[in-house]
């Protein structure tokens, strides 16, 4: 009896808005706007920083523009694109006695739930990892070319982007509170896969 009831409700929910959901599930990128903005602010910040001398001769204008773009990127990646594209989120919570906790969550995968597509996940992580690396390259180039007035901006850029990267990596690791354990398991997985592939050849 109970089984029949459950089946009934399942049928009802499937028929409701079926076509839209099917199209949604089939789409390679389910959140085009979020994907666009995830990359837009990061890439614009880098492009503006690099092309500063051509756009305008004003140090201050360039500095403020890049800083604003970096801030918008930080906010949108932390609050919007991470949640929509890969189902991860992280935040800080201060409880009653003033202790601050950092909380990292990953959305549980279930058949009823709409999970992230591979394309979105790949774009998300690539964007998240490559940009801080580029900013670190900028750091060394600024240091060695002695254009020290840009150092503050580059350091701000590295901190903001690295903060998001670190937060999402911790979300992804989920229950693993120990970074070395997670790294070891990831490495062993990769080695196993490589050995298996080599054996196949």
């Amino acid at each position, binding site marked *: 009896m109970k089984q029949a009831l459950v089946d009934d409700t399942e049928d009802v929910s499937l028929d409701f808005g079926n076509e839209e959901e099917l199209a949604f599930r089939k789409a390679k990128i389910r959140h085009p706007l979020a994907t666009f903005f995830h990359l837009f602010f990061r890439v614009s910040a880098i492009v503006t920083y690099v092309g500063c001398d051509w756009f305008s*001769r*004003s*140090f*201050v204008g360039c*500095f*403020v523009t890049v*800083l604003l773009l970096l*801030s918008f990127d930080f*906010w949108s990646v932390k*609050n*919007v694109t991470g*949640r929509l594209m890969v189902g991860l*989120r992280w*935040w*800080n*919570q*201060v409880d009653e006695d*003033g*202790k*601050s906790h950092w*909380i990292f*969550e990953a*959305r*549980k995968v279930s058949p009823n*739930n*709409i999970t992230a597509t591979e394309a979105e996940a790949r774009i998300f992580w690539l964007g998240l990892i490559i940009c801080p690396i580029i900013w670190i390259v900028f750091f060394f180039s600024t240091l060695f070319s002695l254009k020290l*007035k840009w150092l*503050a901006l580059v350091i701000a850029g590295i901190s903001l982007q690295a903060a998001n990267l670190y937060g999402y990596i911790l979300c992804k690791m989920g229950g693993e509170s120990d970074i070395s354990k997670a790294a070891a398991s990831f490495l062993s997985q990769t080695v196993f896969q490589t050995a298996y592939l080599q054996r196949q050849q």
Partner: protein
Amino acid sequence: MAEAAESPGDPRTTSPRPLMRDLKAVGKKFMHVLYPRKSNTLLRDWDLWGPLVLCVTLALMLQRGSADNENDGGPQFAEVFVIIWFGAVTITLNSKLLGGNISFFQSLCVLGYCILPLTVALLVCRLVLLAKPGPINFIVRLFVVIVMFAWSIVASTAFLADSQPPNRKALAIYPVFLFYFVISWMILTFAP
């Protein structure tokens, strides 16, 4: 939507309109700085957007119009930026080393938001500087800066002092005093 079905976590992140929520939080904190009351809002829901906006505003307004075209206020802008953030970080480290039970970002948040009165002082000073220069001009600016300086100290002390053990309060407040003094000095000695 998916948010409602997710685990009951922080109510902030399950809100469907995070932008409005964050903007309102920033506005609320500005109000709390203007009317300092014993409340936990600045500490509980910290964010660094207000300090960033204030820092950039302060650095922009403290620009000198330089005769040399190449030197278009570059060093002064970055200087103000570095002084504010480095100063705030140093004060935070100091208060943590003294055994305060406030977190790193909470302290940065309070110190950053309490720069608001000094930013207002700078606005007023710039307006006053449009008038005829002279001793009266200077005295008016001095008075405004001193009042706003006191306001900043009172506002930040209201939030920070509680987190320190009683015999360390003066040791923790003294760097805050220095920090706002340096900023007030930059504002007072500003001449376009």
